């Protein structure tokens, strides 16, 4: 039972690590931000998994339902999704500015230009 009970967490960790890998291993700034988004979505799944109750129902009160899933993680993640899009937009705007200034969005190329100054 235990391995099955932890399956969600392990998949979340796998997804988190793929996002982390994209952020640190790829040199392209746009792909780095996509990696950050992959990481972020995996955190959402972690929270929602923690809020699930076996046999529970969506937390909308109505007749004849005994047990509901936990509404608090849902609220936190609603906030996190919207904040995540705001930060993504800011990051992408920075990438566009960097591309304007350096003519490239590849990290090593930007470093080379900085060093040659």
């Amino acid at each position, binding site marked *: *039972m*235990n391995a099955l*009970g*932890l*399956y*969600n*967490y*392990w*998949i979340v*960790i796998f*997804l*988190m690590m*793929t996002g*982390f890998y994209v952020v*640190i*291993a*790829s*040199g*392209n*700034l*746009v*792909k780095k931000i*996509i990696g950050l988004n*992959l990481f972020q*979505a995996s955190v*959402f*799944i972690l929270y*929602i*998994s923690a809020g*699930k*109750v*076996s*046999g529970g129902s969506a*937390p*909308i*009160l*109505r007749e004849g339902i005994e047990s*509901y*899933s936990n*509404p*608090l993680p*849902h*609220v936190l*993640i609603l*906030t996190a*999704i*919207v904040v995540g*899009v*705001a930060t*993504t*937009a*800011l990051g*992408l705007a920075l*990438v*566009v*500015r960097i*591309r304007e200034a350096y*003519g490239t*969005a*590849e990290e090593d190329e930007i470093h080379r230009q900085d060093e040659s100054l």
Partner: protein
Amino acid sequence: MIELVNFVLLGLLAVTALAAIRLHDLFAVTMMFGIYSLLAAVVFVVLDAVDVAFTEAAVGVGISTILMLATIGLVGRQERRPSHRPLLPLAVVIVTGAALVYGTLDMPGFGDPDAPVQRHVAPRYLEQSPEEIGIPNVVTVVLASYRGYDTLGELTVIFTAGVGILALLGLRRRRPSTQPTEQEKT
């Protein structure tokens, strides 16, 4: 049954994430990200978080993907392939992942009704909100009433990000670029 659907969907998510690593065309990576977000939204429906699923499908799949496509349109869609094998990042990722897996070993099982997270404030929200607020959707009640300051803080973050984006891209008049970009040269 729900466990089985959950099992399959999470497996698909893992495959999509791997595909996003392997691809080097940023347009394809963005599409993979869209699929990933949509699958995450379906997982949220399965796990009873319907409000979160709506928001993820609208904001995560819609707005994020459009922002990324717009950026790719300005920046260029091909990522340069790395010249050497990324062994150090791989090692860092494996060590971090192993530490996190070790951390999950004494976590409560999936769906456990007696887990600490289920026994804190959530029962109070579910039991008291019909008398105190009177709206059936508890997520809305908590978002707008019990934790209204969180939502105010969220608005502050969005406002700050909007000001930052305007400062970066919008308000300043573009100077004509003195040196041609890579694309103009070729």
